[in-house]
Every structure is written in structure tokens, then in C-alpha cells.
């Protein structure tokens, strides 16, 4: 039995949050969503593309999932704050996945702008879930200003490089008083399982699923990996040893000395 995850008072049975970016169409997204069993999905805000058909909100509503708007593409605290306010109007939710990035090439968070935006949005009564680097001190600062969770990257967005600094993620988990959600870097199921084994409370995953050859199969795979990782963590792994430790008893071992 998996314990529910609680973020800002909301109970969630699923430990997987699905990012909706990168799916080739709404049909594949809907199928992957079902396979993922996610209860929360991220969405973004953009100027209308006249060629787009149907609203993603119809897909998410039909699937019965909650919308978590993001501030993707914002480079300054000011832009992120306005985008969050637009999202609150558009989706009637106070929840915001706060992204403030430093440049286009790495999409790494800009720590200074991120903390400033987080503080302002918490003051404006948002439930702030910041996408952050794997820096335990920055995570503490974000928690101190009132963020409802911290969402460290394992590696850059869309890189599929997994968790490049598991020790930092472990330190963040140890010290955090709010849920830790691994956000970005997952490339395949084992990365998601590893995040949960390290102590993360949930995994947010977009590209690994949406850009997989078979997104629906990968959605199921990563869902199972998240559950497996959580279960493995609660089961308690054996310590690592430099040398072997036999699992078969040595007692009662027969002796095959040749007669002299």
C-alpha cells in the first residue's frame, strides 16, 4: 500500500506528475495520461497558435486530472510573476510550477530570480512549486520563503541524463521539510526508480515519456518504476560492501578430498 503524497494539504495517490510538453498530439497524450495514472499534469501559457486544434484542457478534463500551470520560458522574476497571475486567471488555480531559467541552452534555473519570484508569489497566496537546481542550500532558501515543495533537476530539461548528482538529491531529501519532487532529467524508468530510492516524494516527467518511441508504454513503465522505487526504499536496501558476503551457509559444506 502506497502512502498518499501530501502537497499543500492535497492528498495524491500517484507519485508521478506528468508534463504534457512534447506529445505529438492530444490522442497520444490522453493515452499516456491514462497509462501514467498521474493525477496532476503541467500546462503552459502561450499566444494562440491559429493552427492548433482542440484545447488541451478538454483532454485533461476528460481524464479527470488537475492542471498545474508552469511559467516555462520566463527569464526574470517579473515575467514569471505575471505569467503565474495569468495562469491563475486562466485555470482558476493557485498552484504554480515556478520556472525561471538562466539561458536557452541549458534551461538551468536562475537562482537569484527564482527566489525573488517565489517570495513574491507566496506573498500573493500562490502554492509555489519551484523547479530548482540540485543545490541543497537553494532548496532551503526556497522552503524558507514558503514554497510548498522543491523540485530539483536530476539533469537539464529534456537531456535524459538521469540524476547527475545523487548525493545532493539525498542531502536535499534529508533536510527538506516539504516534499521533494525530481523534476527534469529522467531518461527512462530506472532514473525514476532511482529518484524514489534516493528519497524523493514524487517524480515529474515529460520528455522521457512524450518523446519516447512508444510514449504510452513508457508512461506505464515510468509509473511502475516510481512505485517500485518507493517500495524498494521502504523495504530497506542492504548496505553496499566492497567484498562479497555469501548468501549460502558455509556450515555443512562437504569435503571432497581424494583418498591418499
Amino acid at each position, binding site marked *: 500500500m502506497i502512502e498518499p503524497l501530501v502537497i499543500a494539504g492535497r492528498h495524491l495517490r500517484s507519485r508521478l506528475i506528468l*508534463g*504534457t*510538453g512534447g506529445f505529438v498530439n492530444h490522442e497520444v497524450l490522453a493515452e499516456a495520461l491514462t497509462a501514467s495514472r498521474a493525477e496532476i499534469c503541467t*500546462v503552459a501559457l502561450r499566444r*494562440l497558435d491559429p493552427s492548433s486544434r482542440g484545447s488541451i*484542457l478538454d483532454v485533461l478534463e476528460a481524464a479527470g486530472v488537475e492542471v498545474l500551470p*508552469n511559467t516555462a520560458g520566463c527569464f526574470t522574476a517579473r515575467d514569471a510573476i505575471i505569467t503565474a497571475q*495569468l495562469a491563475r486567471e*486562466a485555470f482558476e488555480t493557485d498552484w504554480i510550477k515556478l520556472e525561471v531559467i538562466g539561458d536557452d541552452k541549458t534551461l538551468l534555473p536562475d537562482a537569484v530570480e527564482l527566489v525573488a519570484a517565489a517570495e513574491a508569489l507566496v506573498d500573493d497566496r500562490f502554492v509555489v512549486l519551484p523547479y530548482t537546481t540540485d543545490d541543497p542550500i537553494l532548496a532551503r532558501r526556497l522552503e524558507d520563503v514558503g514554497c510548498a515543495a522543491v523540485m530539483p533537476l536530476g539533469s537539464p530539461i529534456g537531456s535524459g541524463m538521469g540524476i547527475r548528482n545523487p548525493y545532493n538529491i539525498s542531502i536535499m531529501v534529508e533536510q527538506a521539510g516539504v516534499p521533494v519532487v525530481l523534476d527534469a532529467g529522467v531518461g527512462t524508468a530506472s532514473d525514476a526508480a532511482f529518484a524514489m530510492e534516493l528519497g524523493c516524494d514524487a517524480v515529474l516527467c515529460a520528455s522521457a515519456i512524450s518523446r519516447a518511441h512508444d510514449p504510452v508504454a513508457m508512461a506505464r513503465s515510468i509509473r511502475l518504476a516510481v512505485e517500485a522505487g518507493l517500495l524498494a526504499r521502504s523495504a530497506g536496501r542492504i548496505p553496499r560492501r566492497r567484498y562479497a558476503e555469501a548468501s549460502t551457509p558455509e556450515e555443512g559444506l562437504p569435503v571432497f578430498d581424494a583418498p591418499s
Partner: protein
Amino acid sequence: MRVVVNGQARELGNDATVASVVESVYGDHDGRGVAAALDGEVVPRGLWEWTGLSEGARVEIVVAVQGG
């Protein structure tokens, strides 16, 4: 008057409001998943009809898209 909507210049009547601009961009939309900002400030949906535009106004109208 001349205003800029989503980065594009438009010529609108003097009685234009945020609501009329949203309608001109999105047609007969129920407003769900749509938000608007005027000169860098968010305009709550309930005020769209009552918020007039002035010469040179910059309006941004956004909708939900896949992302994140």
C-alpha cells in the same frame, strides 16, 4: 486607435475593450483557459468588458498549451 495585440499592430475602434479584443482573436470563446494582460498587468476576466484600451496599448492574450 492603434494597439498591439500579441505583438501585432491592430487598428481598433475607440470603444475597444479587453473583452472585444479577446473576442476578435478567439472568436466566440468561453474564456476557459484564456487570460489577458494589458500593458504588463493582468486583467481579471470579470473586468474585461469594463477595461477600455487607449492608443498604443499592448495586449497579451494567452491560452493553455502543452508544456512542462
